[in-house]
């Protein structure tokens, strides 16, 4: 993805509930996925161009950086009302893209997000913005008020997506995106997705089982050699 994707005009400003009301029913044979960032080997900094992978989805940091802090680390100003588990915190003027590893389509049912203010915080209203890229080639852009230093739970219901880019805007009479002066910092957790055509991909838990099996094989071979 390139930056050229970014920031189509925010032509509709809708609150989350009204968007959700307009959505059609989920497609048949859907498999729900929740990206919760609680994958310890991937804790740490996500540099620009690097990606976080969970449950067949890839989150690519497109600008500045993100931090997935180990649970319990208090990040200044960041939300903490998610039960203390890990989450994705993007800093500076960071933005990131969500897509499936296999390029398939998905529904974005909802997510948790909250603004991370600098000290001192911005006085203006902060907006969480989405650039939506649909499987049919159409695009849309939407925005929602974002709580400061706390997670808000958004029910979305966007269907048949190919990719979504997340960023923030500041409202000062008009929208300015992404939020400048390195104030565009936000946290995201519990991204609820539905995969219409699940592709058989090993999940992290499956990887662990495979690894254990290989280790077990090694041990048994040594035993055989004796």
């Amino acid at each position: 993805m390139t930056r050229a994707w970014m920031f189509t005009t925010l032509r509709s400003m809708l609150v989350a509930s009204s968007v959700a009301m307009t959505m059609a029913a989920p497609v048949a044979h859907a498999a729900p996925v929740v990206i919760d960032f609680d994958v310890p080997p991937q804790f740490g900094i996500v540099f620009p161009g690097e990606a976080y992978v969970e449950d067949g989805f890839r989150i690519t940091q497109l600008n500045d950086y993100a931090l997935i802090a180990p649970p319990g680390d208090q990040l200044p100003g960041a939300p903490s009302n998610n039960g203390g588990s890990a989450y994705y915190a993007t800093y500076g003027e960071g933005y990131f893209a969500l897509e499936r590893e296999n390029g398939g389509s998905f529904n974005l049912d909802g997510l948790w997000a909250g603004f991370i203010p600098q000290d001192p915080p911005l006085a203006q209203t902060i907006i969480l913005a989405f650039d939506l890229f649909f499987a049919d080639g159409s695009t849309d852009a939407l925005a929602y008020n974002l709580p400061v230093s706390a997670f808000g739970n958004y029910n979305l219901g966007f269907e048949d997506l190919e990719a979504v880019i997340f960023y923030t805007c500041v409202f000062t009479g008009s929208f300015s995106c992404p939020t400048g002066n390195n104030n565009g910092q936000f946290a995201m957790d519990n991204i609820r997705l539905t995969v219409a055509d699940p592709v058989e991909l090993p999940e992290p838990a499956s990887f662990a089982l495979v690894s254990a099996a290989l280790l077990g094989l090694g041990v048994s071979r040594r035993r055989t050699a004796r």
Partner: protein
Amino acid sequence: MITVRHFAALSLLSVATAAGAQNAQQKQYIVRLADAPAATYQGGVAGIAATRPVPGAKLNATAANTRAYVGYLAQQRGAAIASIGNVPIQHAYSYAFNGFSAMLTDAQAAALRASGRAVSVEPVERYRMNTTRTPDFLGLTAPGGLWSKFDPGARRALGEDVIIGIIDSGIWPENPSFGDRVNASGQPIAYNESGGTLAYGPPPAKWKGACTSGAGFNASMCNNKLIGARYYHAGFDANPRAIRTSFEYLSARDGDGHGTHTASTAGGNFGARAVIDGIDAGRMSGMAPRARLATYKVCWEATIQDEGGCYGNDAIKAIDDAVADGVDVLNYSVGGSQTNAADPVELAFLNAVAAGVFVATSAGNDGPGNQVAHIGPWMMTTAASTHDRYTVASVTLGNGSTYSGPSYQGAGLAPTPLVLAHNAGVKPFAELSVTDQTALQRCYNAADRAALGGTADAALDPGKVAGKALVCIRGGNVLVNKADADKVAGGAAMIIQNTPSSSDTLILQPYVIPTVQLAAASSAGVLAYAATPNASVTFGPGTQLAGVVAPVMADFSSRGPNKGNANILKPDIAAPGVDVVAAYRDLSLTQAQHDAVASGTLTPAANAGSLQGTSMAAPHIAGIAALLKQLYPTWSPAAIKSAMMTSTNPVKLADGGVDPTPWGFGAGHVNPNAASDPGLVYDATATDFAKFLCGGGLTPPAGLGSCASVGSVSAANLNLASITLADVAGSASVTRTVTNVSSSPAIYTASASLPGWTVTTSPNALSLAPGAKASFTLTLTRDTAPVGSWTFGSLAWSDGTRTVRSPLSARALAFAAPALVEDVRASGSGSKVFQVTSSYTGVMKLSASGLVPATLTQSAVATGFEQCTNFTVPAGTRVARFQLFNADTQGGAATDLDLTVTRGPNGTGPVVGSSGGTQANELVQLMRPTAATYSACVSGYATPGNASASYTLSSWLVGDPSGPQTLRAAMPGQVYAGGKASVAATWSVPAGARYLGDLRFSDASDTLLADTVLFINNKP
């Protein structure tokens, strides 16, 4: 490599102490206990109501609840003392400080710290003590001046019924400055003069103090003017090397003169005769001539000068008593900490402020160096400047050369033989030792020779001096002693000659014989001529010098910036402190006469003296505060301080221009008339000062609230009348709140300027009803101001008639990052996010290095010994850190180790860092050290039983990164001028060790901006 060497100096000290005390391990400590003192107790003990006075009221020390609470504190104190074996205590504190002072062993001190009863246990510090014209000079006597104003009771603002407490060297009560009667002419007379009529009513009802008798001082010397006298000496006495001089008095009587001088400057009677060593010098007055005075003697003269002075535990007891006694204003012309606002003495003053007492302190006499003392924002720290009385006399030598210099004498000197002190000794100059040569040239008297060095061989020979004028060179002793030595030898007059190697200030002060002081520029001519046979000299009469430039900062006045917190302006204000004539002790007493005074068989004479020092400046402020306290009884100490700071006059340079550097004078030169109608004040409560302490990582005294309950405020945002921003990266904002203290509505508009900065105030107009408050934000944005240098300007609010001016100071920083980020946890991986501030827009580079685990060096050391470990620090080292931990030391907190790092092996070379805490937690960290062999030396200050105690020295060297690092860090790709950016660091290392890393910030051209050191303690 480890080397052992004996710590010679420390061992000598130990021997000396052992000879003088039963237990060489005992030291004087001030112990602060957990409960609030009575001045700030807000309730909470069952059955005892709050004792904290409401704003504008005083602590009532005799009220039932206060007595009950003080009784409760005594119980708690008793339990704490019992827990360490009922050690005898020196002082018990209850009112402005809760705790006690005592001689304790380190083990007892550690036990108290560990018990949870004591909030702090700190060794006692000792400090040294650091007026006819000044009421006119300050405009008090002018038509419409402050003395002509009326208080709500229609009494003139002369300090009526305001009580000023003087914590100093005591008082000489025979001076008419301190009498309560006046003669038929209305002039004040001293207690020992007969007749007259009573000029003062009984002490105000708030007064609960006492007049304590002692050597040469009895209760009859107190009266309705001098209403209290107490003295404190347990701290002084606990030093076995501190022996009172034979001219001291074990009582409130002044053994020095300093306390008498400061008392009369603050609140001495109007029109008191000033007779200086027998010479009439007119009449003098304190700033608040109708105030009542109470003296608290804590400063003592010692036979070994360096052991004398004012002990902190004695001073705290004086503050404690003064608050309970009901003083309104305290003056403390004594030294103080230059770095620690939470020093026990300063905290006692904070509690006094909480009880509504205004505190004036002296800035110190260590100028022009950056040595300002008393840095707590609750006190008014006063610098010393000149006033305009200045008489000069001509000096005409027999060879026709003419000079002039300051001279008090008014009659001149007819042609008189002139002799150089070198040639006027009892022995030929060439036969004297070097020390005696110095003593003779400088005209030391016998006392100087005893104190400064010199034998009787260095005495002046009356046969060579009598009837002549003598040339003495400046240096060594105080100038008046040169005249004393001359007079004792029968001299008729004196020239004090400054030299290129002496101080070259010129001081106008009275001497016991006609004297002129000459500048160093004339030294070659005068000294050469005076050495010739049959030399002679003529003095013209001293005449007022026209166009005297004043006020000018005294060079001795300690300068800012504040070394403890550069965001708090210190000193706060300047006041006259050069050539101040005020009451003094009688210097003419012989030993026998002194002894007769001490035993009560002789009443000594009054005397006056001209002194200089910030000690003389502070009581001007104390006295003016008393005038304001009378006019506005409900104003807080902070409001009084603000009124004085926002109404100052400029201080001048010697050439008459405006002095641009507020490090000398703070807000400026006090202008009492304008201070009495300030319009607006920047007020602050004791709670605000507690928040300030919390904001600086310090703990406020109990009673003002814990940091968790009061919160915190940054030093820059404390509501002071000064605005000082030490590290502005691009842009910064501060908020202030002003209160309209006038009786009418007013609209104020702001104007602010600071060279090289854009300054805005929002809002820039304030409409305020009487008594109303309004807040504003002041924002600085760097324009052309140079990075790293201070610039000075001002903020002024004006309503068209009044100007409320605040000094505004800022220092631009290229980049602001925390010097240290610490993380303490048991596990080995984690993350941190912190903010940095940039002064430019562009790219910033970040390079992370580490984490490096500690190198551990195990050894052992006993009391008085030192162990040095050598370290090779390679080029390019970013950080070198050396650290000791209680947890890694045998005996833990009860072991007192110190750590010194030198650039050189085995403890040789210059000391580049040292750490001397009272336990074994010690840390020396060197940023970007030059490549060399360094040594980290651990010395045993006090090990349990003086036995060898094992310890582990942890050390880290972090260079530039090479290969993969366990520390990873990121920051945004673009930074903005004045903007913040979040920096994240993550790491994953084995648990159970301590690690060091470094984050280095540089700009696009690789110019180093800052390092942030990351200390990861996985072994908490």
